[in-house]
């Protein structure tokens, strides 16, 4: 029989040190609050946003780079080795370098956008690109050595390729303000939105969901034929979108890309819903209320994208599309993160213990409940404010967003402090 101190002994090879994923999550939680503050500062400018530097663009990138990609980095660095059955790198420096470069780059990018400082924006964009290339290297190393999980691995490769398109388009857009032109602006914006939101984030989220959702719901894996069809459609949609945006095929085909992307997403959601309905655990709490809200927003984003493409008259359609797309991804990720954080905290705090702490023991439910109400209200008020040209609804939305971000921060801090306390007490002789 093993003694208590050898219990979970080999887990250390598959778990990063707790500080590594948690510092990515901590940065995401902080940027989440800063994003809502920036959007509140932008105020009425959000309604008529058509691009260009300013607080709206800064707030938007605090959400995308600061929260969405930051969360994806932290989660994938920890979860992918577990899923692909590989040991994590023993050295800490690649992760610390990635985190440091990325945080610095994001701060420079958003400051450059908010304060109209093109040189700072360009330097920030280069730093973010460097950090994400480092991440790409870590991701490729993991995917190349993956043992099994072909569905997750292919999602990972498509996300990695999307990251390259995203970086090229991002550098092109950031460089425009400094007179550096790499790709024509309209094409760069199209590539940027398509490959950042649906390519990188969409594929990472879909890939990880095939493991996480059945695991949380205690359900069987979804039918492979349907999940492969969903992945195939997503890849086809991204390819067609890229060909259209680079001017290589007729622009009308962009509608085909949207429809294929929507079908890919709907099949994925149907598979996830089936897993949730058939799973042994039915009550997944507030986290999956957020996940479902995120799915609904993302589905609506495809409908609005099609309406925009077909030039169906709808006031502020582009802004509404942006809220649904970024809001949908944000809602989905915050929901998943609210389950992953206590779970990871319990795993780390319990390593080597005969009676490890439970995830529910590491969770503060009250702040999560408050966040759910505030976040849902924020999205609804933003959509209503933009739809009805009402600044007060918009302001109410950003205030609700700030309150929600504070509550989410309280939840995260609670879990982090509990875990740190347990780790510190274990470290004492």
């Amino acid at each position, binding site marked *: 029989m093993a003694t208590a101190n050898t219990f979970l002994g*080999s887990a250390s*090879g598959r778990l990063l040190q707790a500080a590594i994923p948690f510092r990515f999550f901590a940065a995401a939680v902080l940027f989440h609050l800063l994003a809502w503050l920036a959007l509140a500062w932008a105020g009425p400018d959000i309604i008529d946003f058509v691009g260009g530097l300013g607080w709206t663009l800064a707030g938007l990138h605090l959400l995308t780079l600061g929260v969405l990609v930051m969360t994806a980095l932290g989660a994938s660095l920890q979860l992918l080795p*577990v899923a692909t*059955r590989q040991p994590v790198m023993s050295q800490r420096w690649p992760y610390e370098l990635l985190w440091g470069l990325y945080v610095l780059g994001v701060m420079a990018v958003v400051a450059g956008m908010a304060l109209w400082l093109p040189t700072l924006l360009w330097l920030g964009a280069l730093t973010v690109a460097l950090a994400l290339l480092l991440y790409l290297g870590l991701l490729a190393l993991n995917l190349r050595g993956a043992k099994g999980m072909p569905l997750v691995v292919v999602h990972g490769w498509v996300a990695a390729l999307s990251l390259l398109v995203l970086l090229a388009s991002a550098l092109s857009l950031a460089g425009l303000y400094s007179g550096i032109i790499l790709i024509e602006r309209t094409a760069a914006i199209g590539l940027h939105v398509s490959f950042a939101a649906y390519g990188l984030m969409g594929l990472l989220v879909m890939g990880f969901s095939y493991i996480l959702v059945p695991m949380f719901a205690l359900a069987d894996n979804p039918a492979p034929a349907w999940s492969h069809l969903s992945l195939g459609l997503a890849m086809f949609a991204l390819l067609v979108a890229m060909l259209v945006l680079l001017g290589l095929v007729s622009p009308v085909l962009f509608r085909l890309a949207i429809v294929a992307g929507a079908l890919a997403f709907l099949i994925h959601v149907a598979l996830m819903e089936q897993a949730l309905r058939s799973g*042994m655990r039915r009550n997944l709490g507030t986290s999956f209320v957020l996940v479902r809200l995120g799915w609904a927003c993302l589905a609506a984003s495809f409908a609005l994208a099609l309406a925009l493409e077909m030039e169906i008259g709808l006031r502020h359609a582009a802004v509404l599309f942006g809220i649904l797309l970024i809001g949908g991804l944000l809602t989905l990720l915050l929901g998943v993160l609210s389950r992953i954080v206590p779970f990871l905290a*319990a795993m780390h705090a319990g390593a080597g213990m*005969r*009676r490890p702490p439970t995830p529910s023991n590491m969770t503060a439910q009250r702040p999560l409940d408050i966040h759910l109400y505030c976040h849902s209200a924020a999205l609804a008020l933003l959509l209503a404010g933009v739809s009805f040209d009402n600044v007060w609804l918009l302001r109410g939305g950003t205030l609700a967003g700030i309150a929600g971000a504070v509550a989410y921060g309280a939840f995260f801090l609670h879990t982090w402090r509990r875990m740190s306390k347990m780790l510190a007490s274990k470290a004492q002789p």
Partner: protein
Amino acid sequence: MHVEVRGLLPPNPFVTIIGLIERLAPGQTLTVHHDRDPVPLYAELAERGWLAERIHGEPGEVRLLLSRDA
């Protein structure tokens, strides 16, 4: 009771093991034959009032004895 989950892809070992312990009678234990340390499993077992103990297994095997926390 024994369960062989070697070769199963994630999250199937996790789901299989949790599904089985839910059906065990009081006092019954479950021996798990795994090909890797099931890192995410322990937190879920703790949540359900179960303990895991690593016991001697074949070379390359991770063998766990699961029992209810008294």
